């Protein structure tokens, strides 16, 4: 099954709920008509929030650059002694 079909099924289910709400008037009609807009806007806000939070908590590792340099020096020393060309590029 294509993944987009799963998404469609979900949207159809949500739409069915929405139409159901329209017909049974549990919520006043005025508000129900606006629900899809609320949904899309909420989804957009949630997405932006996730991006923002993720950006704030973006895992960084500055110490890794230093460790890498140490590893590179260690490797160069070992390899030079054994005849591998590690001349600076």
């Amino acid at each position, binding site marked *: *099954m*294509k*993944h*987009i079909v799963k*998404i469609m099924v979900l949207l159809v289910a949500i739409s069915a709920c929405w139409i159901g709400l329209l017909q049974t008037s549990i919520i006043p009609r005025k508000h129900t008509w606006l629900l899809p807009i609320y949904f899309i806007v909420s989804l957009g806000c949630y*997405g932006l929030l*996730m*991006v923002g939070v*993720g*950006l704030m908590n*973006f*895992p*960084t*590792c*500055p110490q*890794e*650059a230093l460790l*890498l340099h140490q*590893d*590179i020096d*260690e*490797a*160069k020393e*070992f*390899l030079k002694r*054994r*005849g*591998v*060309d*590690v*001349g*600076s*590029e």
Partner: protein
Amino acid sequence: MVKEKKNKYSIIVPTYNERLNIALIVYLIFKHLRDVDFEIVIVDDGSPDGTQEVVKQLHQVYGEDRILLRPRAKKLGLGTAYIHGLKHVSGNFVVIMDADLSHHPKYLPSFIKKQLETGASIVTGTRYVKGGGVHGWNLMRKLTSRGANVLAQTLLWPGVSDLTGSFRLYKKSVLEDIISSVVSKGYVFQMEMIVRASRKGYHIEEVPITFVDRVFGSSKLGGSEIVEYLKGLAYLLVLDSN
């Protein structure tokens, strides 16, 4: 009497003009995989900088049975490099990693350990969880990465936190199964691999890795990359999982 099969790990490293890095990465792999049966398959696409000469020097130090040089005539792309490398592996597990030291071999034991603990078909390295991380990205790059990730998670429900990562351990049979049907190129290739695997129901585990961006100054995220990414997402949405 059941004969216990020992595990052998074949590490495929595609190279193009990695004369210095290939020597460093080979040293580091040997340093961190002391008690492991492994081989390194170097797929060099006819590097003009003498990468293959350096590999031959490495043969003298480490042996030709542990370092397999399997070159190609010219630059032909990553996906086909893996397929080419796969033809020469003798292990039952395959690791793919970059040659430019953005992937550090010190994580190899954690990939192996995770696979042995969980029996997973694929262990993929993730940069985006606690314990992992990225160094060398400016704010714009982090923003696009995060935005792309949120979009992909929302649309694809992939089950992994890092879709475009290319530091992965596969069971050889699983890699062979998936790679034959992949059509995308570039980093969308990596996305397609993991999404196909996930849809087919393969057991996928993640380990945190750190990524030190070594390609300083080159703009890897331009408008065309973004378009390519969106096209990749659209393709993966309509991908048939069989």
